[in-house]
């Protein structure tokens, strides 16, 4: 039983990273009908940016918490700007081209980012400094550290913030309108181009924040981390019903749990087989994902 709870806690930790990244895939799909394959690499670049800030600040003691927040902020900002830059440079010129061109552009951007960081880091790994405290909230049969709670809490906060933005603000409502019917939204005077930029910015900010949190938690990153994590987050986005934000968040947590339980009860070698098996099985029963787009509205 204690093993089960431990797998649950660890699965939720992985899942909260995946959920944050899956949201970006889903948001962009909502407004552009594009699977943004470069999204995982935006996460990776954010993670490296956060590492850069932490190394530059090299603080200790009580300032560590400040440095950690500065790093999350900086990583999120770098990713956000990068996401908008990618949108303007690579996707905007192709918006009226066939969808397949857009998809190929996304794969191209992904490879370009990955190979650039690979060359800059000689494909080696980089270690994050020890920022998160080791203190434990529960240290009995099940171990939960304060940093795990903080990371899951920060992820949840960001997701609630996004949800509030999408449902409670004018811009968020416009974003939903654009996702539901782009042509009608334009006729109602919604600035589609500007809104697409905002969508890219928010999605990338979430990925960048997740990247820095991921780096702090696991303390080791490399150029390929965006591909590995991004693939799972993409799976979560599809499983949740791509375009559906609540679905992406829930499926992100679910994939994290599946990964944790599969590796724990079977073997980590089986984790990927089971994750993608679950995806295929779910899509056979519900082709539009667990929270399929026909039921819920897309954003």
């Amino acid at each position, binding site marked *: 039983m204690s093993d089960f709870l431990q797998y649950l806690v660890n699965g939720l930790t992985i899942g909260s990273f995946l959920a944050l990244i899956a949201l970006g895939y889903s948001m962009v799909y909502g407004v552009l009908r594009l699977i943004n394959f470069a999204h995982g690499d935006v996460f990776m670049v954010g993670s490296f940016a956060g590492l850069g800030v932490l190394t530059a600040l090299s603080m200790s003691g009580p300032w560590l918490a400040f440095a950690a927040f500065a790093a999350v902020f900086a990583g999120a900002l770098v990713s956000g700007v990068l996401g908008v830059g990618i949108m303007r440079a690579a996707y905007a010129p192709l918006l009226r081209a066939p969808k397949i061109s857009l998809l190929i552009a996304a794969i191209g951007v992904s490879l370009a980012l990955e190979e650039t960081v690979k060359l800059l880091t000689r494909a080696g790994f980089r270690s994050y400094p020890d920022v998160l405290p080791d203190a434990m909230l529960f240290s009995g049969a099940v171990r939960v550290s304060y940093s795990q709670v903080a990371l899951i809490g920060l992820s949840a906060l960001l997701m609630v913030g996004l949800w509030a933005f999408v449902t409670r603000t004018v811009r968020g409502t416009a974003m939903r309108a654009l996702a539901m019917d782009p042509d009608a939204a334009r006729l109602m005077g919604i600035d589609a181009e500007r809104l697409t930029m905002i969508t890219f910015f928010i999605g990338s900010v979430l990925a960048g924040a997740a990247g820095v949190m991921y780096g702090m938690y696991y303390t080791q990153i490399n150029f390929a981390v965006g591909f590995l994590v991004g693939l799972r987050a993409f799976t979560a986005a599809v499983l949740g019903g791509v375009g559906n934000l609540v679905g992406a968040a829930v499926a992100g947590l679910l994939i994290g749990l599946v990964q944790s339980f599969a590796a724990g009860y079977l073997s*980590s070698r089986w984790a990927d087989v089971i994750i993608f098996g679950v995806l295929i099985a779910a899509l056979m029963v519900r082709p539009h994902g667990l929270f399929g787009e026909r039921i819920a509205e897309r954003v």
Partner: protein
Amino acid sequence: MTSWSRRRLVCIGGLALSLVACSKKGGEDGGNIQIGVPVPLSGDSASAGQDILAAAKVAAGEINDRGGVKGRKLEIVPADDACSPQQAAQAAQKLVNSGVVAAAGGYCSGAAVAAGPIFGRANLPFILDASTNPVLTDQGQGKVFRTCGRDDRQGDFAAKFVVDTLHAKRVAVLHDNTTYAKGLAEAAVAALKKNGQAEVTYFDALTAGQSDYTPVLTNIAGTHPDVVYFTGYFAEAGLLLKQRKQLGLTFQLVGGDATTDVSALRTAGTAAEGFIATTAPLATTLPSAADFVKRFKSENTGTDPGPFSAYEYDAINVLAKAIERAGSTKGPELLKALHELPEYQGVTGPISFDEKGDRKTVNFVAVTVRDGKYISYAH
């Protein structure tokens, strides 16, 4: 054929000729003697490869300062094998084509297994400084040598160490499915079973390159081991140490000789304290290697040599001795000279090779981490 394509053909022909001309350099014609050093210069094991390459340069620099070998300077030719079999084969072919007289290097056994036959077909000796998988010399047809030990012997040592010194009754063995890690894990399990004093509670692999090993660790902890022997590489060792502490697990983590790179300690931070690894003696703990350590540090901005730097330094020196004795840089004569080499006093101890190419006397020791540094294990 149009005149344009004919011109192109002439160009390509000319290019091919110039390549052939290049590849003649470094052979018998009295120029520099080129020694190939295939190591991972990219990928997760890159820091180990850079330490090995730096040691090769220190050795060649010293020999050249003394006037070279038979009046000819040694030249180190690095090649990146990226710790991958495919790239290792390409790197080895590139070195053979560029006219090296021998290769001395290697880190990952999986990469060395792919490179071995390519040097072998060209009749060039391949001296390994770090690749410990038994297959390498067993199937090396006498053309592969090593200044490091073999994993069957390391497995024996590890089994004896965890039972006799750490008094473990229950041992879990974890590898990562690479040639090296699997070989060492199997050797350790075989030795533990033969010894019969400790029970093997767990034997499985993790998937390298993932960040989260907490499920694996929780699973292992469920088998209640006293000691977990991890035979993979240092990138994962750092993560395992970190996450073992996060989970509050109390078993002793012991690593194989690929976990002793300092970058594992950077990932693990304070969680690395008390970590133990089985390895051939590290340069920093060998009195006979003190001069080498000093020279290495002065040429590498004060960084300590890596775990295999001293073995690479000895490999280059042994090769230089063999070239001197053979009076030639021809492959077959070099191979013969290496096999017949009288005992050479290296910084890692006496070196001579048996008929397979394995080093006759090499022992394994245990090291442990204290204050962020590896020191000899003493209890």
